[in-house]
């Protein structure tokens, strides 16, 4: 290649040549090839089929005492089921949306529970800040200034409807898909 400097790749007019075309096609082909090889590697790190196969969980509500709650595991995530007192429900219902950090739906207490079953609050028990499990589901645990949940990791606080009232968490606790099978049994998932 010592005499490569004497090659003339381009005619003096600067027209597009066959060599330009070949360079572009080779470059584009190479990029597609690298992407095609990389994608299976990247996608292999996403949840596997058996992880995705969501098994529904049935929960018997009878043993859950008023004012207390239970914690169960659904899709590897903890879920809170809380039996709210009348005072807690009233407080949640009477909170104006303007007092909330995250007023995006579902934000009203009515939207966060099933109609006719407003004593039952079902939440994914993962703090929307960095994923810790908040305290307060069991009676006697620290519940924070709004009587709902308190996250021990970075001090976020949630009210009796699972809505964030004190940062750093940016969003309300998530409500999993669930339905009442009868008055004392729910199915999550």
């Amino acid at each position, binding site marked *: 290649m010592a005499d490569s400097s004497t090659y003339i790749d381009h005619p003096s007019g600067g027209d597009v040549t066959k060599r330009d075309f070949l360079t572009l096609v080779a470059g584009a082909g190479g990029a597609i090839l690298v992407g095609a090889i990389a994608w299976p590697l*990247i996608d292999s*790190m*996403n*949840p*596997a089929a058996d*992880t995705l196969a969501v098994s529904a969980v049935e929960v018997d509500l009878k043993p859950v005492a008023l004012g207390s709650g239970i*914690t169960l*595991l659904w*899709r*590897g*995530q*903890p879920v809170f089921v809380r039996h709210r007192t009348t005072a807690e429900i009233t407080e949640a219902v009477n909170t104006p949306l303007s007092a909330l950090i995250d007023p995006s739906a579902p934000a009203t207490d009515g939207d966060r529970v099933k109609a006719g079953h407003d004593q039952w609050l079902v939440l994914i028990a*993962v703090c929307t*800040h*960095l*994923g*810790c*499990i908040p*305290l307060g589901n069991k009676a006697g645990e620290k519940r924070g200034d709004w009587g709902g949940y308190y996250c*021990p*990791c*970075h*001090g976020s606080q949630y009210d009796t409807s699972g809505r964030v009232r004190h*940062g*750093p*968490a*940016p969003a309300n606790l998530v409500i999993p898909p669930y339905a009442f099978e009868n008055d004392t049994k729910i199915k999550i998932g």
Partner: protein
Amino acid sequence: MTGLYKSTYKNPLINWFDSRLPILSMMDKEYGSFPTPKNFNYFWNFGALATVNLAIMIITGVFLAMNYDPNADNAFASVQHIMRDVNYGWLLRYAHSNGASMFFIVVYIHMFRGLYYGSYKAPRELLWQLGVVILLLMMATAFMGYVLPWGQMSFWGAKVITNLFSAIPIVGNAVVTWLWGGFSVGAPTLNRFFSLHHLLPFVLTGVVFLHIVALHITGSNNPLGIEVKGPADTLPFHPYYTSKDSVGICVYLIVFAILVFFAPNSLGHADNYIPANPLSTPADIVPEWYFLPFYAILRSVPNKLLGVIMMFGSIAVLFAIPWLDTSKVRSARFRPLYRPFVALALPASLFLLGDVGAHSPSGIWIPLGRIGTAYYFFHFLVLMPFLGWIEKPLPLPESISSPVIKPSAVYQAETV
């Protein structure tokens, strides 16, 4: 260019080898006769110490991996099996876990050396930036290694740190699910962390190699921060600095041995001897000590995305230091205004942040965390550019040799 290398070795067998693969000549050039400034103090030991530490980590780690089981059901028990049943398993594990702490101590001092003596300034910008890349790789490797024992702190530390990525707008949650391989930290997460924890140290070794190549192009900085003027300013690396480094290595090994044999759990957290439980968050999630200042920066901001940006920004700002510092003078020894800030205020703010990071975020710790965070960024983004402009540096010595050989010449230069 091809053809045999003209080896100067007298022994015909060595000469035959070196002519075909001149690694012996290369080693002699880079580590034997390599001209090195003759005025190094003991701060210049820490690069060599870090290299030794990396070797210790890789060797102990490879042997630990022979007995560790990355299955989520067995991981915790297999670490206890290493501690109780494997011959010298306790020594391998304690050397590895305390070796990580030693690695950060050594590298943090190495970085402080670079900051104080201006080792990041032209022409060593890329050398410094490769060092920051090494720090990032160390942090990623240390974080994933801490997850492997699969105790409570492993699990919840992993959950909090991976959740940092959920702060990314729009794709955040998809990224976190991808990192986990599920909907929570779980078995797939542990497996991939084990795989990457084994891989990254070798990537790290590659970057260390580039770091040393860049160092041997520019040559080392020195406590005076002035360039080498000629052969009178240098000594061959061997035996002068091989011996000086050996002294440092002995002291380093003494400290290391004290940690391993007398206080092996002093830097760890007792909660990590409880098996991981996805249904119970420990009352206080505390990272390892070497992450505490960055954890404090994260928590000092009451907004999730901003906190994450500030935390990553605290490392990112290091990449820009070569251009943030506007002073023409490298060594803080000749910078009377800047010197107390880099020698006292910056370390003090980092120690403060470290203390804040170890406490739960309430009461006095919140304002203290904000003060520390504010100073950290103020130091790099405001002080560094500003002081470089207004400061009148002390007169620099003419050469490395002049203050050593003729102190009177420096005295005259300063009084004239």
